[in-house]
């Protein structure tokens, strides 16, 4: 009784209190940002490096504003996000069904598992040369690299989720009227494995986001990776820093979205 009498996930307070609680969660990020900028500025003031090596935070902020105003930064960011998103979606479309099939049918897993294990340790970055040879430096090559990078985390997590379902839940589902495999999948297998699938989707988005920058550094005419590599070539380290900051901030934002989805659909608890 005691465990149930205090409802979980419900805290007292009205909308104002809730707003402050949410805002308080952002404080650590704020401290981190202030800390990094302070150190950065201190280095610039003390060591006085040439502008092309390390620009001051102020100059970087000005460049940031310029690049936003000119539309260059939003365009590059949009390219990178588009590439990751389309490759990640493609990977999910293949890896989630395949993961369920491998997790539920041992025979299929026995056949495919060695193939997966063989390809899994190969970094997506190692595929960049082949991707360029096969698909050129247009969208195809980069989407291919990200596809490789996001495919395995989704696949492995989905397999794990589908495999570890408590068999008694399957029996309960069958007893309670899930006579065929389709309804059993929809009503029991899918919801039981969902939290683990979401973990895979979240992790893979992170690896995809890291890999796209690398792919764009090597071969691209657009995207945040290109902004960085181009900045290096023309000795504009402020471009490089603007690109890096944008990558970091977008990465945190996407992860926040996934955390929200995870909280909403994860029945495993807080």
């Amino acid at each position: 009784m005691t465990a149930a009498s205090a409802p979980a996930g419900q805290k007292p307070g009205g909308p104002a209190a809730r707003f402050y609680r949410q805002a308080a969660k952002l404080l650590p990020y704020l401290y981190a940002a202030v800390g990094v900028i302070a150190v950065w500025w201190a280095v610039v003031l003390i060591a006085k490096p040439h502008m092309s090596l390390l620009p001051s935070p102020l100059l970087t902020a000005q460049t940031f504003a310029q690049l936003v105003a000119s539309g260059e930064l939003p365009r590059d960011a949009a390219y990178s996000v588009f590439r990751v998103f389309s490759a990640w979606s493609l990977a999910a479309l293949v890896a989630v069904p395949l993961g369920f099939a491998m997790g539920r049918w041992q025979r299929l897993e026995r056949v495919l598992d060695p193939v997966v294990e063989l390809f899994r340790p190969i970094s997506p970055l190692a595929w960049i040369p082949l991707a360029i040879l096969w698909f050129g430096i247009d969208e195809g090559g980069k989407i291919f690299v990200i596809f490789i990078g996001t495919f395995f985390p989704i696949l492995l997590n989905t397999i794990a989720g589908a495999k570890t379902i408590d068999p008694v839940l399957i029996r309960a589902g069958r007893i309670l009227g899930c006579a065929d495999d389709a309804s059993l999948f929809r009503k029991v297998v899918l919801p039981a494995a969902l939290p683990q699938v979401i973990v895979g989707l979240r992790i893979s988005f992170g690896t995809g986001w890291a890999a796209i920058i690398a792919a764009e550094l090597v071969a691209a005419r657009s995207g945040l990776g290109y902004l960085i590599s181009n900045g290096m070539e023309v000795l504009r380290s402020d471009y490089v820093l603007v690109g890096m900051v944008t990558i970091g901030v977008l990465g945190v934002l996407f992860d926040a979205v996934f955390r929200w989805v995870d909280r909403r659909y994860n029945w495993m608890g807080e």
Partner: protein
Amino acid sequence: MLAEVVPGKPLSLRGLAKHYATADGRVIEALKPVDLDIAPGEFLVVVGPSGCGKSTLLNILAGLTEPSAGEARVGEAIVRGPDIDRGMVFQDYALFPWLSVIGNVEFGLERKGIARRERREVAMRYLAMVGLSDFADKRPRELSGGMKQRVAIARTFATEPSIIFMDEPFGALDALTRRHLQHELLRIWQEHRKTVVFITHSVVEAIYLADRIVLMTARPGRIKTVLKVELTHPRDPTSDDFRTIERRVYADLDEELAKSFRMEGRDPDA
């Protein structure tokens, strides 16, 4: 009191047997041919040591396992697979953790095609029956073991099955909760008049609940004795009549246990 009471159906077992083949080609007899007739609305308890095939028997009756020989009929229909008309309560509750308490009770009703509003009403009625109306929106993980099993009982009775199988349903509960739930189960059973097949290895539990006790023996599993319990409810485990039956059951069980221990002494594989 509930509106409609759908009475239980009879169950008949004819030559029902199960054997497994091991990897090295030996055949293990899990269940010797069983013949048994269970009357509509009867509370039948199967008692036996572990390994006596009582769970195998129950899984065959529920349609989760195929018999190697013989058949089981519920009413006129031969058991060929799981059916929502035959309910089951599992030892480890088997509640769906991603659904709320009421969602669990509604699961089978939804599979039966009952409309949302009626579903909710029926589910609430059965939650009231087990005294958990206030916990409808909780998650199973917020409940104690005894409460979980009450939810599972509500979920099973809610679909109005004509027969209910219970696989050591109170085996994981503490003695006090167990006593309370035995009492509750009897009350619900008397109200609904379902046919119940209940498995336990507690002799006292068997005598407390059963119209008839089936005593099974191990290696291979077979029925040793069938015993009518004619005491009126509520039964007093400290009364002389209760004790007399208890002594008789233990006498039969001890004989068998001694036999199986002797067998173990002879056969290192057993």
